């Protein structure tokens, strides 16, 4: 199994209030991985999410440093609405999002996300899933937060291939 860089987006000065887009995703890999390093522009902690079809289900297991919660969402047109990024100075959340069999046209797509952030006194760590109830091959992807991404936020997209030679 090998991992190859496809694209990278870094948010410049002034931030990105309209989200971050990946278009024309190659259909030649087996899986996709997004590596997200993000911070929101305005005060507070806001959700990072991916717009999706209506009533997209998500599930989370989260720790906030004091308690553990497991929650479910099913009525939102977003994926990963329970994942968050901070706005604390220079502090960024890190998330790794895996999408298996993204080009398959017979399956719904299950997204798995792992990540979190810590701001020296507050923080959250998250294991999450979202079901994209569509059999379409994924050709584009869009991330946003409730208040946009701050400068230096970065999202890298990788394709993961499998090999008959290695059996991976």
């Amino acid at each position, binding site marked *: 199994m*090998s*991992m190859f860089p496809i694209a*990278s987006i870094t948010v410049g000065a002034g931030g990105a209030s309209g989200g971050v887009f990946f278009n024309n995703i190659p259909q030649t890999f087996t899986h996709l991985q997004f590596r997200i390093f993000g911070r929101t522009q305005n005060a507070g902690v806001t959700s990072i999410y991916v717009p999706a079809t209506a009533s997209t289900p998500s599930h989370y297991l989260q*720790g906030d440093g004091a308690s553990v919660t497991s929650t479910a969402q099913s009525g939102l047109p977003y994926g990963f609405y329970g994942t968050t990024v901070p706005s604390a100075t220079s*502090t960024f959340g*890190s*998330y790794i999002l895996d999408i298996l069999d993204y080009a398959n046209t017979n399956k719904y797509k299950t997204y798995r996300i792992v990540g979190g952030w810590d701001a020296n*006194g507050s923080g959250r760590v998250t294991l999450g899933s979202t079901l994209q109830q569509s059999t379409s091959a994924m050709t584009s992807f869009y991330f946003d937060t409730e208040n946009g991404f701050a400068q230096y936020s*970065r999202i*890298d997209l990788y394709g993961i291939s499998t090999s008959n030679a290695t059996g991976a």
Partner: protein
Amino acid sequence: MPVSLSSASAAMHGAMVPIVTSTLSSNGYFDFTNIPQTYQDLFVVENARAVTTSGDSGFSTQNYGNMYFNNVTTGYSVTFLIGNGASATSTRASTQTNCYLGYIPNGNATSGIFGSITTHILNYANTSTYKTILSRSAGDTNGSGTTALVVNTWQNTAAINRLTIYCSSTNFLAGTTATLYGIRSIGQ
């Protein structure tokens, strides 16, 4: 165990490039220096066991796997999500001297049991942002054990050029392994 990376492989293997791997021949720790600044992220894989028989956080058979950067022991904070086979907990610590990466078996565990920790260090070479460290640990000792998902922040904008990987007793058991990978982005 100091390891200079001057002889690290420069060969490219897709996005994940092995930089250095090391196995302890005697009890000790890892000190990876001269880390190349040419990747987007770092990824560390450990198969580890602590020497001590003094457990951490109430786990008699488990100890913390730790890490600090650039020989700096200030500015770390952490949030844990931990399962111990009976319950799930989340804890936090501020203003720490190191990252906590999770838990590994210690000298109270049955001989031959090692735990695993994987650690992602995103944007490690950036000089404008604090560093966020995401790790997962697995330590099962047949009757007790932990699995943890952990996020640390190093409140320092310096590029990371050195990793010191140790456990809370300082020494890993001989046979512990650590491998450092660089994750290339597009154009790197």
